[in-house]
């Protein structure tokens, strides 16, 4: 199958993976933010950022990297 990559911001992505990433990370961020005690700005921000990190780690494990990496010596 001829897989299509999309070039955006200097690197390659898969459209479906991008949509999944945006939905997952946005959800973990906002859910965590809304779980924080109401009216407490610092905790609200901290919880939100915590949610961002959780979503980021989840996507890092879930989504394949679209780069082929060589060290310079590998094919010298």
């Amino acid at each position, binding site marked *: 199958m001829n897989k299509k990559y*999309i070039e955006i911001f200097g690197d390659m992505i898969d459209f479906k993976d991008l949509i*999944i*990433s945006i939905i997952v990370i946005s959800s973990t961020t906002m859910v965590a933010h809304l779980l924080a005690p109401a009216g407490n700005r610092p905790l609200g921000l*901290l919880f939100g950022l915590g949610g961002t990190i959780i979503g980021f780690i989840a996507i890092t494990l879930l989504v394949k990297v679209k780069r082929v990496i060589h060290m310079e010596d590998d094919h010298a």
Partner: protein
Amino acid sequence: MPDININIQIVLAVFAAVAIYTVIGFIPGTDETSVLMPITLTLVLSGFEPIVVLAFFVAAIVTLNLTNTMPTALVGLPGGVMSSPMIEHSILLKNQGKSAAIIRKMAAASFLGVLIALPTSLILAGLLAPYGELIKPYAPYLFVFGAIFLSLISKHKLLSLLSIVPLAILFQALRHLYWGLGVVDASVTITTSFFLGITIGPLMVSLYSLLNKDTKKTMERDQPNTIVIPHESKQSLNPFKLLSRKEAGYAAVSAFFANFLFVLSPVGLTILFGETVANRVKDPVEKATTAITTMAAMVQSTYLSQLIIPLVALGIPLSPVAIGPAAALFNATGVFTIEHNIHHMLSMPQFIVVITVASAIALVLVYFLIHRYASRITKLILSYIPHEAVLGVFVALILLLSYMDAGIINVFGVLLIGISSGTLNKMGVNYGVQFMTLYAASFIVSTLAGWSM
């Protein structure tokens, strides 16, 4: 003298900043403001001592500015906004197989930039401090002047000039809408999420374009990105031996003069100085090296001077860095206000000591780290962190901060800003002009309103 406990906190804050921002710096495409501002704001709001927060922030910018240049040089992906002007030159050098040598030169120039900016901006701050009260009333004029000046030195002068007033109206229209609807209190001026809206505008436009099937087709590729990472070279660690006399000279002189232009956009200044010195060199390889080393020094110098001068001398965020990434040090709901912030809480000797210590520790740690492990860290990060995750984080961050600033309506308000300023950006109106316009918006619009009555 601060007690022992505070000293330990300062050192821990510096180490934490180095650890966090080394990782973030190596991830391509992480915008400085979006990664510096929220974390600093969290520290401020959590009630850390002002001196600890300042140490963290100084270490963070020194680390980030140095590590951001690594993916730029090694694989041709910009580490952040500030390293995007280096891309063209670094790709040229990479194709010549010079990446390994150039990262050392960049690190050395960055080192030089800190070394020059630190004393220069502290002295300048000391000289300006007595005039602080005199300058304050003129801040809005300076921002308007800055927007016009940056337009005039940009590639698309008329386009930029003609964008200033419409953009200012867009920002003020949203603020007045929220005040009018009672979404935010009349005393609250939203800046943070608007700033981020401008910053990720081009990304927003690209993401929106993906929803148009015809445009999406033009962005499709058959091949994944193939990236070859060079190994670190075994050269001297002495930053003064890594640069030729000419490179060091250009970098040092540029880094020095940047301090006096602290109200102008750091990216704009980096491009201006970098390209100006590069144009004095004929040989294409030497030209690229000169541009890159000068830019690496400029990035450190602009960030440090734009933090130090407004913070130490004035206490008002009168520079793009102060009003953007460092905004939380000047104004954080419930902790700092424009009348009472870090500027008012620390003494001159405290400023000098903490800024010097934090930047020195961060600089030395990151400098050695880069010389030993730059290639390996790059490989690790590029192999495991998908581009999708980085883009997802930006969308999530802007969502969170716009929601926190003024609720759901502001999520769409910031989207509107992103689409508008992103479109202007793609047409050729640079970030500097847009940021200056945001700072000058209230003044421009109230002046126009005065003329319209």
